[in-house]
Structure formats: C-alpha cells, structure tokens
C-alpha cells in the first residue's frame, strides 16, 4: 500500500508543473476515512446488514478503481489520478469529488470545469438556495401508500413559486409492463435497480396531491448554501447510477438520508442499525438532529373540496352536486335564490368535484364544456378562499412504528391468561390515532403468545398481514371499503385450535360526525385440521361501527362466516382504546366467539407501547 502511494506521489512529481502537488501533510488514508469521502462513496457505516462497510452503489460506472466498491482508499487514489490534470474528462463526471480533493489538497477551483459544457449547462439550470423534504402522506384505498414516501425539493428561493422547484426522487426503475405479483416481489426484494431522478416539482404535485389525493407535508431543511452545493454537485455524480432498491430498508427515504449525509457529513444519520426505514422515520431522524427548521402542510385536492363543501348546508351541497352534472342549473331559480358568496362556493365545489372525477380520464367534449361553464361562473362570482384545515396532524408526531404489548384477561369466566405481543408494523383502527388516516389499518407481523395457568406460553395469533381501508362515502365520492387479512389464529372448531386463514372482502363505510359505520362482505379460506378438506371456504359479513372522541377510540363489530361444510362461526367484539400518551395506549376488549349452539366470552385488558 505504501509503495503504491509512493509511486503515485513520484508520478505526480514527474508530471508537468501545471499539476498542483499535494500538500505533504495531508494523509490520503485520513482523507479516505473522512466522513465526507465515505458519504460521497455511499459507504455503509453499519446502517443496514447488507453491504456493511462497502458502497451501496451497484454500478461499475460509479467507480474509477476496480476495487472501489470495497476500498475507499483505492477509490480515492484512482480519483486523484483521474481528476488532477486540467481538462480531465473525469472531472465532468465527478464535480463533488473534485471539490473534495481541491479543498483537501489545495487544488485550483477557478475554471476547473471550463471544459465540461454539459455539466455547466445542467448546473446553471439546477440551482437551489433551499432544500425541503417532502412527505406525501398516506392515502385511503392505496395500501402501498400507507407508509408514505419522501422526496427532496430544491427551491430557487421564491417562496411563492415552488412549482418551479426541482424534485429529487429515488425510486425503483421498473418497466410499464410489470404489474403481476412476481414483479411486486422483485420490487420488495432488490430485483430492480434504484435511481435518482430529477423532475420538475410541479409533476410531483400533480401526481401526489392531484391524482392520488395525498396530503403533502413539506419540511424545510436547515442546510446552508455550501451544503446545498455539495448535495447538488453530488447529484450530478449519481445521474444514471444504479443502486439496489429494497422496499423495506434501502428505499426512497434511506437514500435521501445518504444525500443529507453528503451535504453535512457527520450527521450520524446512518450509524444506527435498522431493519426497515419507514418514511416517517426519516422525518423523525432529521427532526431529532435539528435539521428541520420549518413544516408546511399542503392539502390534497380531495381535502380542499371537503373543506369547501363543509361550508354549505345539506341543500346547498345537494344543489352543488346537481350543478356538476348539469351546469345549466346555474341559471335556475333555486341557484339564483342563494347569496352571491354561497353561489360562488357552490360553483367552486361543483367545478372541483367535476375535475376531481374526470382528471384521470380521456378528455371528452361534454366534460370539457361542463367544466368550462362552471369555471366561467366562478370567474363572474366573488372569489372563494378554501378554508384551511384546522390543526392538521403531522405524521411524524404519530406513534412509533413497532409495538410491544402485554395483556391479562379471562376466558369463559374461569380461564385466566396473560399475553405478550409484538408487532413489526404499523397501525390498526384503534391505535392512537394522532397523525394517522382515519379508517386505515395496515399491520405486518403481529405475533401474540398466550400463557394460561394450566400450561406454557403458546402461539395465540400470528397475523402475517392485515390491511383495512374504510373510506367513507358521501354525495361526492363513493369509494369502496375493503380489507384483507391472513395468518394463523386460534378459532373454535370442535375445540379451540390454531388455524391458518386468509380472508377479505369489500363494501362501504359512512361518516356521521364522530361515528363511522361499515358494512363489508367477507370471504374466508381456512386450513383447519378438524375440517375434512384442506381448505374450507366460508362467506359472510363484517359489520361494525367506529366512534372516536379525543383520546378515546371505540369499535363495536361482528364478523361471521358460514362454511361449505355447514359449519358457522362468528366473533363479536366491543373494544375501546385510551391513548395515554403518544407512545402508550390502554385497550380493553370484550369478545364473544360463537358457533352453532354455543360460544365463548373473553375479556382482555392490554397495555400497548409503541416505539421506532
């Protein structure tokens, strides 16, 4: 190693005097081990299990040395050799690395990129004086969005013109045809490369806020101009460079932390080991280190429509709805009888509803004509301001993503039991609601062990996945509510035994103030050693009602199935949870499991602790 270093040094001395010799007191070893160089190479400092102490980059084009991926010093030396001469082409590919070497070794910085026309053109277009972490929140009916997403926005300084900002997005590069479950598995397990993309932020607003009805939370990062310049210059180095994409840990959010680490090395964002990086964790990590200075809430189009709509009374809402179907009602007596400001709100609601409904569809003359008629009416009526959402709940203030729980209870009046539960992720209908979507549930790996007086701890429940989306229907939108749930649970069939099941269904839900009733059909497939066939299907209903008030969440419901072997089983439950603090909750539940002729009652009191 030292001989190689000496050779390189001698080579430098032998080359023309135009080359600035390195300062003799700067050790290449120290530089290679420095935080910034490690960050520029995306070396894993121990954040995830894969690729420990190697670079996360999975692309030969990123490395100048053959062993660059494992050996930061080799890469540093190769970079030094490739970038040192004025006019070196490699400088145009690695501007951030050049800046690093120039600052560390005293190289000339003025005019260093004069020969890099493409880079200079790009750099002139991509400037920023502010970086903002954007978090498009979850969206009902889209389970894949429930974990959220994070992207970076680069603002040029005009507070009011973020539409002209750039968005930095890390995502997997899939092809348009991939839609089957095999490809979904690939996406989760590193089968697709991940890349950084730089697109106009307005496109992201269209995608998330307008198309997907997702609220967007925007967190201003406390990075100064120098730090931003490092980030942008390094971004150029990542153009068309492949990383692996793993849905759980090396995903969009994780890569953004790597970018912030380049801007501000030593932030300690990547030192803790993690098995999953949920986007909200990224926001929390940055917040804890004081890197977030401001927060801004951008409601989705659906939320804006809702806020406007709620200013109207029932009759006016009905009229606005009819107006969207038939703008000729603009001249009707019923409409004209209302005040100008109410008419303005009704026209705005009708217009927004119509656009929300047809925005994703092929343009038709009829809809365009109707939209235009309403828009013209809006122009002629007084302007309407969309009322702001009162106290929107920032997602990073919600409870932690993992959960541990202990409970005690009694079954059938005489069988006491104790339970221990662990859930990997994320949130159910009764968990502390702050910062979460109402009516949305997504759980993965929920394990419960139960111990009774008469025996050891046994597996009570292992829910592999449970997703539930109860989206309220109203005059303006009629979404489908649905659920899917699968795993192992103890159920009665002759005796209480562990069965494997998969169930799901769809139906509707409604919102009446704090009450949310739901009614879904349900289909269940059960693998039960008591039954004759390997898999026994059953059909039935899942119905219930949710009530929420302050820190208290209530649920009463019943789910039952009638199986093909003339067996039926239902479970009715009344449960309530009190959100003690952000990360602690107490849940009480009363449950009856019933079957033909008989049933069992169970009462349980549970303490739930959430953590990241």
């Amino acid at each position, binding site marked *: 190693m030292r001989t190689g270093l000496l050779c390189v040094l001698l080579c430098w001395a032998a080359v023309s005097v135009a080359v600035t010799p390195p300062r003799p007191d700067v050790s290449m070893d120290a530089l290679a081990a420095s935080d910034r160089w490690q960050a520029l190479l995306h070396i894993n400092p121990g954040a995830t299990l894969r690729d420990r102490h190697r670079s996360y980059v999975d692309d030969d084009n990123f490395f100048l040395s053959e062993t660059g991926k494992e050996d930061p010093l080799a890469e540093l030396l190769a970079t030094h050799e490739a970038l040192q001469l004025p006019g070196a082409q490699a400088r145009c590919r690695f501007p951030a690395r050049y800046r690093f070497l120039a600052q560390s070794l005293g190289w000339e910085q003025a005019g260093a990129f004069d020969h890099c026309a493409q880079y200079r*053109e*790009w750099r002139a*277009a*991509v400037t920023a004086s502010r970086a903002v972490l954007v978090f498009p929140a979850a*969206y009902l*009916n*889209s*389970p*894949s*969005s429930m974990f959220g*997403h994070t992207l970076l926005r680069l603002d040029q300084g*005009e507070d*009011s013109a*973020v*539409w*002209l900002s750039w968005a930095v*997005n*890390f*995502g*997997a*590069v899939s*092809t*348009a045809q991939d*839609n089957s479950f095999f490809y*979904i598995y690939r*996406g989760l397990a590193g089968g*697709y490369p*991940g890349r*950084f*993309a*730089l*697109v*106009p932020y*307005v*496109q992201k607003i*269209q*995608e998330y806020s307008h*198309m*997907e009805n997702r609220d967007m939370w925007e967190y201003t990062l406390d990075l100064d101009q120098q730090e931003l310049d490092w980030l942008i210059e390094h971004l150029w180095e990542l153009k068309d460079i492949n990383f692996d*994409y793993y*849905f759980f840990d090396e*995903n*969009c959010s994780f890569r953004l932390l790597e970018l912030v680490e380049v801007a501000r090395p030593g932030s300690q964002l990547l030192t803790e080991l993690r098995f999953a990086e949920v986007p909200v964790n990224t926001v929390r990590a940055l917040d804890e280190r004081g890197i977030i200075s401001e927060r801004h809430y951008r409601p989705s189009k659906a939320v804006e429509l809702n806020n406007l709509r709620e200013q109207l009374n029932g009759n006016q809402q009905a009229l606005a709805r009819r107006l969207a179907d038939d703008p000729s009602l603009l001249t009707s007596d019923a409409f004209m009888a209302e005040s100008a400001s109410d008419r303005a709100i009704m026209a705005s609601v009708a*217009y927004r509803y119509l*656009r929300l409904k*047809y925005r*994703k*569809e*092929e*343009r038709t003359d009829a*809809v365009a*004509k109707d*939209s*235009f008629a309403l828009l*013209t009416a*809006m*122009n002629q009526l007084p*302007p309407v301001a969309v009322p702001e959402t009162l106290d929107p709940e920032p997602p990073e203030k919600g409870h932690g993503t993992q959960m541990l729980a202990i409970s005690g209870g009694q079954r059938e009046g005489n069988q006491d039991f104790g339970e221990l539960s662990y859930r990997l992720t994320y949130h159910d209908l009764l968990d502390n609601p702050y910062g979460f979507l109402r009516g949305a549930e997504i759980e993965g790996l929920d394990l419960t062990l139960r111990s009774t007086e008469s025996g050891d701890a046994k597996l009570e429940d292992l829910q592999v996945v449970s997703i539930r989306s109860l989206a309220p229907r109203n005059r303006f939108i009629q*979404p489908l509510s*649905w659920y899917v749930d699968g795993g192992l649970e103890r159920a009665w069939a002759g005796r209480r035994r562990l069965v494997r099941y998969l169930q799901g269904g769809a139906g509707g839900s409604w919102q009446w103030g704090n009450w949310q009733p739901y009614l879904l059909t349900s289909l269940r497939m059960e693998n039960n050693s008591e039954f004759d066939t390997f898999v026994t299907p059953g059909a039935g209903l899942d119905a219930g009602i949710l009530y929420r008030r302050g820190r208290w969440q209530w649920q009463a419901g019943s789910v039952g199935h009638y199986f093909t072997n003339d067996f039926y089983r239902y479970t009715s439950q009344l449960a309530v949870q009190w959100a003690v603090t952000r990360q602690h909750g107490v849940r009480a539940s009363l449950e009856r499991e019933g079957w033909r002729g008989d049933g069992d009652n169970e009462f349980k009191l549970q303490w739930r602790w959430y953590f990241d």
Partner: protein
Amino acid sequence: MKKTLIAAAMLGASTSAMAVAPGGPGCGWGNMLFEGQSGMPMHLLATLVNGTTGNATFGMTTGTNGCDTSGALTYSGQSLLGMTGVMEEVAQDMATGEGEALTALSVSMGIEASDRAHFNTVMHENFAAIFPHQDVTAKQVMASINDVMKKDQNLSKYTV
C-alpha cells in the same frame, strides 16, 4: 373493484409521458384545456416502489425537441404552461384571481414581485379573453396572455 383493490393511485408513467400530449408535439403546446391525464395505467408496483418508468429527464434542458420557447421560461426544455395539467390549474387561478399556479407562471415569465398582484388582477379581469372557450390550446393561451399584457402599461415591459 379490481381497479380499486390494485391501488386507486396513479403514478405518472415516464416523465416525458407526463409532459407530452398524446400524439402531440414535444412540448405540449397543443394541449387543450382540461386535457385529461389518461392512458396511464395504474400500477401497484410503481406506487409501491415510488419509481419512475423509462428515462428520467434528470433536469436536462434538452432544447433539441423543437419546443417553441418564446414567451415563457424554458423549464426542462419545455415551458410551464405546456406541461400537462398546468394549464388547468392556471385557468382555475385566473378565474378566481390568485393561486400558486398563477404565481408560478408569473415568476416563470420574469414578472417582478412588485408587479405580481397587478398581473393577477389583470389576468382575472381578462379571463374571458384569455380562455374564450374550452378548446383553447396552450399556445393560444400564451399568445392571449401576451396580448393582454401588451395593452397594460405596467405589464407591457414583460412581453416578448
């Protein structure tokens, strides 16, 4: 039901698809008002991995796709108004007299902060002239905006 189950979420396919009117020229100047963003299939996978399909532009000003950039700032080789969906937002903001899209348009046209409120008012008052019917194209709208600005003494200095 299947559509909803497989995520009622739309991810724009490739960024170039977002920017181009179906079958239209490279810049979206031919986009009509209320152009729908149809033809983009719903991908559970795309939403799951928050990815982009095809080539991401990476912010390059290509300048070679024949876009007519007169009158508005080029932005990734294409003017703001020509981007799919933007014209509709601008129209909505002009109808009411204010909004983020309208501000973005004024900034992209180089209008100074002190003149923007006036710009908004003038656009609001001349809505019918700028958007005479639903079939206007982005190109026509840009031309009409310029015409309206020429007639205003404060704004005429910004016209092309």
